[in-house]
């Protein structure tokens, strides 16, 4: 089994991408709504990553 070494950022982006795809597939009723929702979820995941990263950086002092 090959080994992968991902940074925090890469791992969270991959997690966000795969989760957004499934959330888009299962929650909406038309393909257009599904794509929009998947993109919307992914954007919020990324925003949360940046927001929480800055919060931890600033909180760490």
């Amino acid at each position, binding site marked *: *089994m*090959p*080994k*992968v*070494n*991902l940074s*925090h950022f890469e*791992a969270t982006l*991959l*997690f966000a991408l*795969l*989760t957004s*795809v*499934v*959330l888009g*597939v*299962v929650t909406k*009723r038309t393909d257009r709504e599904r794509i929009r929702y998947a993109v919307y979820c992914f954007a919020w995941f990324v925003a949360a990553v940046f927001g929480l990263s800055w919060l931890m950086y600033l909180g760490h002092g």
Partner: protein
Amino acid sequence: MAEKTISEVPLGKWVPAVALAWIIPGAGHLLLKHPARGGLVAASVASMFLLGLMMRGALFSPQTGDLLTTVIYCGGFLCNGLSGILYFLTVWLGYSQPDMAGHVHDYGTKFLVGAGLLNVLGMVDVYEIATGQKD
């Protein structure tokens, strides 16, 4: 005319599809003739599981003790098992790895748990399709 309630839907209509969706992620959608959605669920669950394995994530085994230990280990074991055939093949073929320190391994463990949870979303979707709540 009153709509059919969910309890009136015969078990035979949704149990095989949901069980198949658990054993083989995405296959429940295929059975219900939604191949594109099944393919996306299968690809996402399998990718997350394989990435978890390649990051040398650990699979949980049930362990009891204090409340937190019980919740984490029993919950983790349950979530790992929800990946279906991916979990069983990993255990049967000996790819299960011990818990190691390090952020990559830790992410791997979370990816393995996350794959099971994504499959639950797929199973719920299959249930809703099979019972006629969704197209």
